[in-house]
């Protein structure tokens, strides 16, 4: 069996142990010191090995004492020249072939050992620190669950910011109470006006309601309010009502107001059917009195 030949790369010292291998266990006594370094210091060597290409065995635990990396592979006749870098984590002597495997997963039994030595620079009898006796408090459901919970909270907050305010605005509007119908709002005002004890605010409300009523009835809701009122003043049916209202409510006190029969003027609006042009989203539906 042909053995590997290897030499050091680091520090410029070539440690070719055997020219081109052919090393055997019996020749070990004449071998130079094994390549290696102190714990934690990387070292590079070159070896010529036969057979299919090799690769480092992935290190998937914390117990493996050697970290090995194949830096470069070059053809070398029927063999291959490997540049290996290794790093020892625990002092001792190791065989690097234990940490190599074939790319085609064929056996590496034909490989001669590649012994390396990892030294400890600490004096013997070094006291090792005790292993920590207390472990961190375990999270209730692990890290992923914690991240998930935070994400859910964040999304909930975002949803509240986006939609919560609007919902509150809608709920704050006076829609909980059934809007009073036009007839319900007009009746007490008309009765008050007929009795002659309607206050100025009530008169203003009465006029606004009548304007709104006639705007709806005459189909003038979509147009400019000023234009609508001007049209209503000339309207065949509504015109006399609004001109009389003007005389009653807005004209300076004088004889023209004495001729107005308020009771007769407002009679048609006293007993309007409950569903007249309704429903109306009354601004004071939440309970304001007329």
């Amino acid at each position, binding site marked *: 069996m042909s053995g590997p030949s290897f030499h050091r790369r680091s520090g410029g010292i070539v440690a070719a142990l055997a020219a081109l291998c052919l090393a055997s266990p019996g020749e070990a006594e004449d071998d130079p010191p094994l390549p290696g370094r102190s714990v934690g210091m990387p070292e590079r060597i070159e070896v010529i090995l036969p057979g299919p290409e090799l690769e480092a065995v992935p290190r998937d635990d914390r117990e493996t004492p050697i970290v090995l990396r194949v830096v470069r592979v070059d053809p070398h006749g029927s063999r291959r020249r490997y540049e290996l870098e290794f790093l020892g984590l625990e002092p001792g002597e190791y065989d690097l072939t234990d940490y190599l495997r074939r790319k085609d997963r064929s056996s590496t039994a034909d490989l001669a050992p590649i012994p390396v030595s990892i030294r400890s620079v600490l004096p013997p009898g070094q006291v090792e620190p005790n292993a920590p006796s207390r472990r961190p408090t375990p999270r209730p459901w692990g890290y992923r669950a914690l991240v998930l919970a935070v994400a859910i909270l964040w999304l909930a907050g975002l949803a509240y910011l986006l939609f919560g305010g609007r919902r509150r605005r809608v709920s704050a509007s006076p829609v909980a109470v059934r809007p009073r119908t036009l007839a319900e709002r007009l009746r007490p005002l008309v009765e008050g006006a007929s009795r002659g004890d309607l206050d100025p605010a009530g008169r203003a409300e009465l006029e606004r309601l009548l304007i709104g009523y006639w705007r709806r009835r005459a189909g003038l809701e979509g147009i400019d*309010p000023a234009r609508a009122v001007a049209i209503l*003043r000339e309207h065949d049916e509504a015109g006399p009502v609004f001109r009389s209202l003007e005389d009653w409510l807005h004209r300076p006190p004088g004889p023209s107001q004495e001729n107005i029969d308020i009771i007769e003027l407002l009679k048609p609006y006293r007993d309007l059917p409950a569903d007249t042009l309704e429903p*109306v989203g009354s601004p004071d539906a939440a309970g304001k009195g007329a």
Partner: protein
Amino acid sequence: MTSADPNAAPAPDPRSSVPPGTAEFIRRIRERVGTVVVGQDVVVERTLVALFTGGHLLLQGVPGLAKTLLVSVLAKTIDLDFRRIQFTVDLLPSDIVGSEILDQRTNEFRTHRGPIFTNLLLADEINRAAPKVQSALLEAMQERKVTIGNDTYTLPAPFLVIATQNPVEQSGTFELPEAQLDRFMLCHRLQYPSKAEEKEVLRRNAALGIRREDKGAIARTEFDVLEKEPVGSVEDLVQAMEAVQLVHVSETFTDHVVEVVDRTRNHPDLELGCSPRAGIALIKGARARALIHGRNFVIPEDLFALAEDVILHRMRLNYEALADGRTGPEVLREILEPFGAASRNGRAPARVS
């Protein structure tokens, strides 16, 4: 049912008593303005409202809508002293109010009064000037006094500022803040003329011809055909202002105004509602409008007609309303709904309580 236009030149109400001289004065002004400016009845009315009430007027409109021509013809019609200032970014307050100049012969300071000392001041493109210039003008508008050096001078009476703003080309302009906009009694947004009015504008312009000057000639403009002879004096104007004060304002109308102003303060879409100055402006404006329409009392139509010009520039939509694409006119329409009903998109009505 007959159609009625609230902005058309009004026929006097036979049941009302407006001083005949004032009614005739108003009719002559409208007639004279109509010889030069086609259409724009509304803006003529608003200008008269401002003139009769001593309020100031802000006109918003794209260039070419005869804003300057209208103010010029109005000044000549009533024999008012008229000045125009084109606002630019490098204008200084002293360019408007005046300054003290050292007289080299006497070695004493002499006061040079600026163009603000006039009856009718056209502040063209007011938003182009720096804020300190705007402040100087608006302070003068409010107090009707200016201070030059150590002396305070009272501005002439009547004193009316008509400012213009171009709603486009906002680059390089300084938007008037709400507090300063509030100084303007009315803010009217000019519209393009109708097709028929535009046709008449073109017809009149085509008939202007050219004017010989020196050895050459130049094309005549509408300014060249302004009648120089006024149709009314300052005394007529004072009488009209007195007549406005006699227009009756019922308690019911005052209640309507209070209601509308209050709605602007409680509307869910508004961040800033109207100040009490808006209510005052509504009453004053309604009185003047009633007089112009031949009435000696105000009616809800006056309120509705002036609401946009008085209220819209005094209110500000909140962030949510802007994000929902709401507009000021839309909200105002909602406020003016006699029922305060829900708007078209089903939003809650303004709460009035």
